[in-house]
C-alpha cells in the first residue's frame, strides 16, 4: 500500500525548503549592516555634537568632489566587470577589475590630498571636534575602501586562475555588492558633510 503511494507521488514537485540564499552573501549583507550602524553612530554623534554649538565651520576641499566622481566611475567599471564575467568575457573582466582597483587607489590618494588641503585651511585632527569628526569619518571610510581593494585583488587573482566565470559568480557578486556599498556610503557621507558643516 505504502509503496504504491510512493510511486504515485514520485513526480510531485519538491516540497518547500525554507527560504534561503547563499550564506556567504547573506553574511556579507549583515556585515554591511554593521558598517552602516558604525557610520550612523558617527554621523548622529556629529549631529548631536554640532547642535551643542562651539562648532568650527569648514569647507570641504574641492578634491573631495573629484574623488566622488572617481568613486562613481569605479562603481561603473565594477558593474561592467560583473557583466563581462556573466558573459564569460574574462579578458575584459581582468581589465575592468584592474581599472576599478586603480580608480579605488586614485580615490584614496585624492582623499589624502584633500586632507592636506584641509590642513592648509587650518582644519586639524586635534582641535575643534568638527575637524576631528571630519578626519575620522573620512579616514574610517578609507580604511573600509582599502579592505575592498584587497577584495578586488583577490577577485582579480581568482579571474587569472579561471575561478571567476558565468557559472561561478558568488565571489564576484559579493565584491560587486561591497564596492557599490562603499561607493554609496561615500556619497552619503559626502552629501552629509556638505549639508552639515
Amino acid at each position, binding site marked *: 500500500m505504502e509503496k504504491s503511494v510512493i510511486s*504515485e507521488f514520485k513526480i510531485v514537485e*519538491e516540497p518547500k525548503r*525554507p527560504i534561503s540564499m547563499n*550564506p556567504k552573501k547573506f553574511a556579507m549583507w549583515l556585515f554591511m549592516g554593521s558598517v552602516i550602524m*558604525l557610520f550612523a553612530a558617527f554621523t548622529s554623534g556629529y549631529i548631536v555634537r554640532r547642535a551643542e554649538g562651539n562648532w568650527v565651520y569648514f569647507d570641504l576641499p574641492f578634491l573631495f568632489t573629484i574623488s566622488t566622481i572617481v568613486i562613481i566611475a569605479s562603481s561603473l567599471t565594477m558593474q561592467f566587470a560583473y557583466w563581462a564575467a556573466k558573459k564569460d568575457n574574462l579578458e575584459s573582466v581582468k581589465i575592468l577589475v584592474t581599472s576599478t582597483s586603480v580608480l579605488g587607489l586614485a580615490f584614496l590618494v585624492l582623499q589624502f590630498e584633500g586632507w592636506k588641503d584641509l590642513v592648509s585651511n587650518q582644519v586639524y*585632527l586635534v582641535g575643534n571636534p568638527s575637524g576631528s569628526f571630519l578626519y*575620522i569619518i573620512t579616514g574610517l571610510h578609507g580604511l573600509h575602501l582599502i579592505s575592498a581593494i584587497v577584495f578586488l585583488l583577490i577577485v582579480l587573482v581568482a579571474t587569472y586562475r579561471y575561478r571567476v566565470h558565468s557559472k561561478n559568480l558568488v565571489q564576484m557578486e559579493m565584491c560587486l555588492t561591497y564596492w557599490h556599498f562603499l561607493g554609496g556610503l561615500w556619497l552619503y557621507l559626502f552629501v552629509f558633510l556638505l549639508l552639515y558643516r
Partner: protein
Amino acid sequence: MATIDLHTHTSTEHHDDHGHDHAHHGNFWTNYVFCEDHKVIAKQFLITGMAWALIGGTLSVLFRLQLGFPNADLSWLKPILGGWLTPEGKIDPEFYLALVTMHGTIMVFFVLTAGLSGTFSNFLIPLQIGARDMASGFMNMLSYWFFFISSCIMFISLFISTGPASGGWVIYPPLSALPQAMQGSGLGMTLWLVAMVFFIVSSLLGSINYITTVINMRTKGMSFTKLPLTIWAFFFTAIIGILSFPVLFAAALLLVFDRSFGTSFYLSDIYIGGEALPNQGGSPILFQHLFWFLGHPEVYIVLLPALGITSEIIATNSRKPIFGYKAMVGSMLFIAILSFVVWAHHMFVTGMNPFLGSIFTLLTLIIAVPSAVKIFNYVTTLWKGNIKFTAAMLFSIGLVSFFLTGGITGIFLGNSAIDIQLHDTYFVVAHFHLVMGSASFFGMVAGVYHWFPKMFGRMMNEKLGYVHFWFTFVGVYLVFFPMHYIGIAGFPRRYYSWTNFETFSGFADLNMLVSIAAIMTLAAQFLFLFNFIYSIFRGKQASANPWNSTTLEWTTPRLPGHGNWPGEIPTVYRWPYDYSKPGSKEDFIPQHIPYSETPESNLAHENDLIKLEMSEDAMTVEKDHTH
C-alpha cells in the same frame, strides 16, 4: 526537474560526510583547539565563560568584604592582593574602584554575553534547526579565538602595577579619557579598550553567523513558525548585537583618539592642578549617548537568550505546550525594537530636556508590556502542568521570579522624576542585578543543567543541583533585596566607604548581611563547578532524549559527532511544543514525527496536512533509491 536537484543535493551531502570523517581523524589541535565544529566551540565558550564567572564573582566578594566589614583586617589576603592592601590591611580605595569596574565588565560582556550567547547559540542553533554545522565554521572558530585574545588582554590587565580600568564598566570620560585622572585610567584603560575591540569583533562574527545560519540552514519543513523559542531568542539577540556593537566601537574609537591623539570629542574645560588642558569643545554627554545606545540593547543581548532557554525548559518540564507561542515571539521582537529607543533613561540626570525625559520615560515604561506578556505566559504554561522539578526547571522558575521582582523596580527607575532620587544608588544596583544579572545567570545555569546530557553524554547530579539552586536562589535574594532599602535611603553606588557620612551609619548591619549572603552565594557556585566537572567524567550515562523533549537536538545520538546526525537530517512536520497532546500515547511528540503517524491525536486541520507530508515522504524514499 526535482530529481536533478535531488541528485546534486545527495552528492553534496556525501561530500560533506567525507569531510566530517576527515575531521574525525584530525589531531589534537584541529579537534579541540582550532576546531570548527559548533559543539566544540560552544564548550570552549562555556568553559571560558565559567572561568570568567568565577573571577568576576570573586572580585565581587572582595569588594563586598570592604562594604560589609569596613573595619576588618584583610591582611590575610596579602598573598593574593599584595600591594593592593593598605598597610592597615584594608583594600586600597583605587583598587576598590578597579574591582567594581572589572566585576561589571567581566559579568556583562565576558560571562553573560560571550558565555551565554556564545555557548547556547553555538550549541543549539544547528542542533535545533537541523543543520550540520554553522553557516561558516571558520568564522565561528575566529569568533571564539577573538574572544580568547580579548579575554587574555583583559585578564592581563588585572595584574599590571597600575591596576585594571577603574572608571566603572561604563567608562565615562573624562575619568576614563585622562590618564592623570586615576591610576586605572592609564595602561589599564588602554588594555580595556583593546580587549573590547577584540570582543566586539568576536561578537559581530558570532552574530553574523547565527543570523545567517538561522535564516539559511534550516532543515526541510522548519518554517519560522516551527522554530523553538530558543532559536527565536538567539536570532533576535544576534540582530540586536549587529546593530548595537558597532556603536560601542564608534564610542570606543573616539575615546581612543581622545586618549592617545589629543582630540577633544569628550573633553572640554578641564583643569588639573590649576592648569587648563588644551582640549576644548568636547562633550562627555556625547559619549554617554553613544555608550548607552549599545548599553541598553546590551541588557537584552544578555537577557533574551536566557528567556529563550527558559521558555524551552519550562514547556518541557511542565509537559505542556508553551502558552502563547506567537505572543512569546512577538513580545521578544517588541522588546528587541524598544531596546533601541530607551537608552536615554540611563541619562535622566545629565541635564536632559525634561520633555525628552518624559518621552524616554514613556518608551521605557512600554517595555513593561511585552515583559509582562512573557511572565504571564510562563506562569500560564506552568499552570496545571505536570511539573517535573529538575534542576534546570528550578533555575528557570527562579529566572521568572527574578525577572518579575527586578522588572517591577524598573518601573520606578524608568520614571524620570523618581530617578532624580534613585539615580546611581543601590536601588539601581538591586534592580539590574535581579532583572538582568541574576535572571540571565539563572538562564545560563538552567541551560547547562538541561543540555548537559547532549553536550557531554552524561547527566549532572540532580541532588547537588537542588542544593545549588536553593543556596543560590535564597542567596541572590538576600544579597539584592536589602539593597533596595539601602538604595532608597540614598546610598550611592561605587562608593568605597560611607563611614564619613553620619546618615549612612544606620545600615551597617544590613550591608554586613548582604556581604555574608554574597559569600554564601559564591560558595554555592563551587558545588555547581564540582558537579559540572565530576559529571563530565563520572556522571550517569544519559539516554539520547533524557527529558522526553520534542526538539530536534534530542533526535541525535547520545554523543552527536561531526555533522550532528549520522544519517539524513530529520524533516520537521510540527511545532516544537506538542506536549501532552490529547489522544496521544506518549506525552510528547517530537518535531520530526509526521501527522500521518499520529492519527489518534491529530486535530482536524492537521489531518489535512497529511497529504502534504506524503509528498515529502516520497522524496525521502526516492533519495534512498539513489544510494
